[in-house]
């Protein structure tokens, strides 16, 4: 703009252009709007989340506020209102999970982390995006989640399944990707502290660029068998910008049997 002005364009025109630019930005990005027009976009104009992302939060250690302890750094929590609204019996189960967390956390078996846990687990994941879907490849376990953005719906009741990652159908509200996730199993935990859910879990995610290298990730969790009301979490995801950064496959469940398979060579037995 300054260079435009230095070229002698009337200041009034510059102000008009600027106002128009801001207006367009505001319309295009009603959500976290600050990202404006500078965020990456697909050919269809939708925000392009392609890249490798990771949270720096302590969410996976415990979604709720917690002091430091042997197995977790302290964290202020990522739950709106701080506490997860468990039903009484479910709270007892959560306490049992917490006590058994050093052996019972499914992550210890390297099993698929689930949704939303995979998003804030402290290992990178990569987003690949097309108009019709968003593909998430998690380094941990190298599991793959697809968010369909092609107008398809959750499976009908007669075709319903129970998935580790749930069934994800997304749509756009302005520059926010809103994802409805259902059809879960009850096998996954929400964090290392034993927070959990049933197969009735329903997650609604909101993915919004804060700036071109930061995603604001929000999720509402609803599960009438476990929680007394829906509750919300929010974490930020940062783009990996290290030179040549890439996912390194982490099929950690193979560690259980790796010792049986020494690299073949003429020398080893």
């Amino acid at each position, binding site marked *: 703009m300054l260079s435009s002005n230095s070229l002698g364009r009337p200041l009034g025109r510059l102000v008009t252009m600027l106002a128009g630019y801001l207006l367009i930005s505001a319309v295009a990005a009603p959500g976290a709007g600050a990202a404006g027009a500078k965020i990456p976009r697909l050919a269809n104009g939708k925000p392009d989340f*392609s890249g490798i992302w990771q949270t720096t939060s302590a969410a996976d250690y415990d979604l709720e506020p917690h002091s430091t302890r042997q197995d977790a750094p302290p964290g202020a929590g990522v739950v709106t209102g701080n506490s997860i609204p468990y039903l009484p019996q479910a709270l007892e189960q959560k306490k049992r999970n917490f006590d058994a967390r050093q052996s019972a956390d499914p992550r210890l078996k390297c099993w698929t982390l689930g949704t939303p846990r995979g998003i804030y687990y402290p290992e990178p994941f990569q987003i690949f995006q097309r108009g019709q879907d968003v593909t998430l490849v998690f380094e941990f376990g190298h599991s793959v989640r697809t968010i*369909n953005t092609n107008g398809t719906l959750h499976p009908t009741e007669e075709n319903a399944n129970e998935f580790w990652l749930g069934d994800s159908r997304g749509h756009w509200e302005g520059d926010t990707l809103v994802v409805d996730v259902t059809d879960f199993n009850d096998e996954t935990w929400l964090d290392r502290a034993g927070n959990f859910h049933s197969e009735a879990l329903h997650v609604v995610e909101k993915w919004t660029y804060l700036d071109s290298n930061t995603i604001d990730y929000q999720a509402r969790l609803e599960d009438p068998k476990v929680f007394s009301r829906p509750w919300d979490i929010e974490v930020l995801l940062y783009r990996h910008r290290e030179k040549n950064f890439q996912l390194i496959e982490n099929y950690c469940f193979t560690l259980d*049997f790796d010792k049986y398979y020494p690299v073949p060579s003429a020398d080893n037995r």
Partner: protein
Amino acid sequence: MAFAMALSAGVVGVPSTAHGQTTAGQNADVAPEAPRISPAVGPASAAGLAPAAGLAPAAGGIPAAGVTPAVAQAAPPRPPGIRWEHAVRQISSGKWTGPRLPDGQPDIQGDWSNTIANQNNWTDPQGGIPGDPTTRSHHPGARGDRAPSRVSDPADGQVPFQDWARSRQQEFLAHLFNPIRPEYVEPFARCAPGGVPKSFTWHGYEIRQFPGYVVFLFGSGTRIIHLDGKPHLPDKIKLWNGDSRGHWEGNTLVVNVSNNNGKARFARTGEFASEHVEIEERYIFDNDRKHYNYQATITDPTVYTRPWTATIPARRYTVDDAPDDWHYEVPLANVPGKDRIPDHFERTCVENNGGFGRVAVPPAAANSAK
């Protein structure tokens, strides 16, 4: 309704049952005739007690992999598509005349599967597993009536093993049906990724393309092919599926695979490479957009006497093909209107590998994984 995928395969001769539930052996060469049965995924499976499910084609007594929807339903009619071609069609490298993606890549996205056979036998793909006491995996007919060896060079169709490596392969095969030591259980049966190149012989898979990438989604692992020319990972890092760098030459995707961990077997017959292997892949796509040939030149001076080439033909599957629980496990999406849009189930394995997990991964070991 439970969703269960039992990718597993391969603990031949080891009971793959839990609590009296049997996993019926299926003839490896035919489509499943039985209804699909899936156990409830519940606490039992969390404890590693659920049997592998999904009665897809498999070697004797081996539940096959697959992304198997849990709803029990009548067996679908046997699909008319190519199931066991006996020859490899010739496809030449050359120009790509089909559609391209905005970034210039030939558009070859979609669902694909090999046209020859599963991973029972590397060099006689339709010949069954030597020593299979059930003969269920055996294909009738003379050798000349069956598909050629996947070893297209040398001409004798055999992997040019050094002597020690040949005896190691024979030792593995001799114990496949009597795995008296843990190392005789194929890692794949424990849900390890199939590795390169075996993944191309096990169930259908999906290819997705993105600017700078070709991504393969297998039932047993994922490969991300980087097209941006970045250097390979440091040599110290060893991976089941290796580290892949590729580029397009006309109709051919050329991929260099390094950083292999050398732990996967190419087939149940036990062929292998070491962590020193370098693999140069050429995916040659027919301009008819319906077929491609996979050719991999495999070089490992510590295991072979010379480089050799593997060839695996593949064909495309679309919504016009009937799902068959093996090559094409793709349901139609729930969509308003008459559009027919393919859907894809999530791909998991170890989580649902209970029947095998109990044998292959003792619970105690599983719990001390990390």
